[in-house]
């Protein structure tokens, strides 16, 4: 079960990061952390892990809909709500501030929707307008607060995970649980909303309802998370675990599970590092951990990673060069009427390295007395590439209306890409032809040097 394999990977990743962290700090601190001996860690860890879980899930859904920057908008738009909550009650009671933030957060996504619906502005511009105006309103309101009350609000801007109390952790737990339950229950709805909302509307699904639900959950996540990591960095935790997870799979349910795991892993690592290196603020450390994870996945993801891509490009390049080399040898043998499989290196155009590489693959062998010859396998392979080339040239001239002297370059590329079923189809379409546009024979499957010689005139 791949989910369990991922789980293993993520736990392993956390372990490695923590071990490397131990290199920086004393092992004693690490043990303190693992044994939860420190009060700050005990206060921060559960809340931060729940936050990672929640943000991972919701971020995955945002990325699927290309709404990532919504996290950015929300994280700015809660600011006036916080100030308004304070003005309303004149206390720094978290409940008031959170309610205010929730209201302006939801309001910001509604206003964005209205702007998109009634103007020609595109999503990015609409989000920018809402973001800047709400943010500015928040700043004005905060500056209007009586002196000495701003200090408490810094906690919302920059976050302070170590100061999470039981009630706040409970709130994070409720928000995370709500997200899990809603996404579990409405998985199909979110799937349709993410990938084909038009179909959803046609099928009578309440697409709009799911959209509003998603907006609400995301706002809630931002609002409850800001005390831990600060409003600006919540946006990072929303995006990064989800984006990392999308690099491993293209199936929504798998990505959701993985993003939740990665979010929690980033939370644990960030807490550890900020605990281990004294005086490192939690929010930035968390986001940096998530960023490092993303970097690793970007390079090394087994399916979509850059390393994988580079290796396959490299492999393809090598195969192309090998096949071109064999093709060159085939042409040499053809010019001699296939009187034998032997050839000299100079006439074939093969380099010393290339011929060795072909020898390792059993395509050519060294003949005592000087020179090389194609093996049976090598001849079959060469004939296959030449057949692909000539068949494609013929197809382009006969079917696609290309001029005879314009088809060679295209065929040079296609000859390496055509699979046997494409060939069978081409053969059928072209009526099992014998000659290419330039009058040369098209080899057949199963040709050997003897049959070629017999058919060559």
């Amino acid at each position: 079960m791949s989910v369990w394999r991922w789980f293993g990977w993520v736990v392993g990743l956390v372990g490695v990061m923590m071990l490397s962290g131990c290199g920086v700090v004393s092992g004693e601190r690490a043990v303190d952390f693992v044994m939860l001996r420190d009060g700050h860690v005990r206060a921060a860890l559960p809340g931060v892990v729940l936050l990672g879980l929640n943000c991972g899930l919701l971020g995955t859904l945002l990325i699927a809909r290309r709404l990532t920057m919504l996290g950015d908008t929300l994280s700015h738009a809660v600011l006036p709500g916080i100030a308004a909550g304070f003005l309303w009650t004149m206390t720094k009671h978290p409940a008031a501030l959170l309610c205010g933030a929730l209201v302006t957060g939801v309001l910001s996504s509604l206003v964005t929707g209205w702007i998109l619906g009634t103007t020609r502005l595109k999503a990015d511009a609409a989000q920018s307008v809402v973001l800047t105006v709400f943010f500015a309103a928040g700043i004005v309101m905060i500056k209007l607060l009586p002196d000495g009350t701003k200090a408490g609000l810094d906690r919302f801007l920059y976050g302070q995970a170590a100061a999470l109390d039981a009630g706040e952790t409970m709130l994070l737990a409720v928000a995370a649980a709500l997200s899990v339950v809603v996404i579990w229950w409405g998985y199909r709805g979110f799937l349709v909303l993410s990938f084909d909302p038009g179909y959803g509307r046609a099928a009578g699904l309440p697409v709009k309802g799911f959209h509003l639900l998603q907006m609400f959950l995301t706002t809630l996540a931002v609002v409850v998370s800001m005390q831990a990591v600060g409003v600006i960095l919540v946006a990072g935790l929303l995006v990064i675990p989800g984006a990392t997870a999308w690099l491993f799979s293209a199936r929504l349910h798998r990505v959701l599970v993985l993003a939740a795991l990665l979010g929690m892993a980033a939370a644990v690592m960030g807490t550890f590092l900020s605990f281990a290196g004294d005086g490192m603020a939690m929010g930035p450390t968390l986001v940096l951990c998530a960023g490092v994870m993303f970097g690793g996945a970007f390079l090394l993801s087994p399916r979509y990673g850059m390393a994988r891509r580079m290796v396959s490009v490299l492999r393809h390049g090598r195969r192309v060069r090998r096949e071109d080399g064999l093709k060159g040898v085939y042409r040499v043998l053809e010019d001699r009427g296939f009187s034998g499989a032997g050839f000299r290196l100079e006439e074939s155009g093969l380099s010393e390295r290339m011929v060795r590489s072909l020898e390792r693959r059993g395509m050519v062998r060294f003949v005592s007395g000087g020179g090389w010859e194609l093996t049976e396998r090598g001849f079959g392979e060469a004939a296959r590439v030449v057949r692909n080339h000539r068949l494609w040239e013929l197809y382009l001239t006969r079917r696609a209306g290309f001029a005879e002297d314009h088809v060679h370059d295209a065929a040079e590329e296609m000859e390496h890409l055509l699979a046997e079923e494409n060939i069978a189809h081409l053969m059928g379409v072209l009526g099992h032809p014998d000659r290419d546009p330039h009058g040369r024979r098209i080899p057949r499957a199963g040709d050997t040097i003897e049959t070629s010689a017999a058919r060559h005139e």
Partner: protein
Amino acid sequence: MNELMTGFGGLMVPRFDVEEVLIAPWTRYADATVWMVLMAVLLGVPCALLGNYLMLRRMALAGDAISHSVLPGLVISYLIFRDLGTLPMMGGAMVAGLVTTVLIEFITGRSRLKTDAAMGITYTTLFALGMFLVNRYAGRVHLDADCVLFGELEYVPLAEPSGLRVGRLGAVPMPVVIAGGMAVGTVGLLMVFSRWLLVTSFDGGFARSVGIRAGAVHYGLMALLSVVVVTALESVGLLVAALLVLPGATAQFFARRMGRLHGLAVVFAVTASVAGIHLGAWLNCPSAAAIALAGGAQFAVAWGVSVWLRGRAVEGVAG
């Protein structure tokens, strides 16, 4: 508490007094206000023009993203050069801006992620890096995070004076001179390259066919954006995004052609600057935020009028 409330209410809903509301903001610190208005206009006009191109390219959020991600550039530059002067800060910010752009392009080019996700990842990670560095070397970096976040337009008249003097007003503050240089440079570059920018925004294929390198134009635009953002950072902070987007977003209600769009955006940028500084002086709140609010109010009015006009047009057709 009671005292606080009344004091507070007094602040929130000021007594209407023509002298106090309309005139005092301009006369009380007249000299300083002149510099603030000049600064706001010098920042607002190039931002408005640049923002129009950003919106054309659906990159309006790039301004916000870059304004966050220059932070590590500033800190690292400071840690290297031990200097908070203009040149090292500009250099650090430009490098950070370009790194941001390259990273975003790199991620979108080499993975399945789209621009929005790449942008989100890049700017939050870089911002976190910046905060981490500030945190780590807090004792040695005299960067005020609040200042970076919110900006202090009010400090402009108090900044060190430059050699330049203007009649009765005396020496021109250094930031105004720098902003002036930036404004002239930006407007000049945008004018020179306006055709390239337009062609690459609307039709990349055509641009390539006439030999314009869309990639180079893109990176050039981002470099310019980084310079503008860092010039504006000290005065308006993250609200530079408002200067970039709001005038153009308001102007597009009234204009469809680029020339008119630019003209109106400049007008709205200037009116928002003046109204914002007035508002800031009147309510005694940060002018940068007040400018953004004034820009937002302009947008809201234009939006409302356009919706109303469309409603009437529909009625007219129906009736």
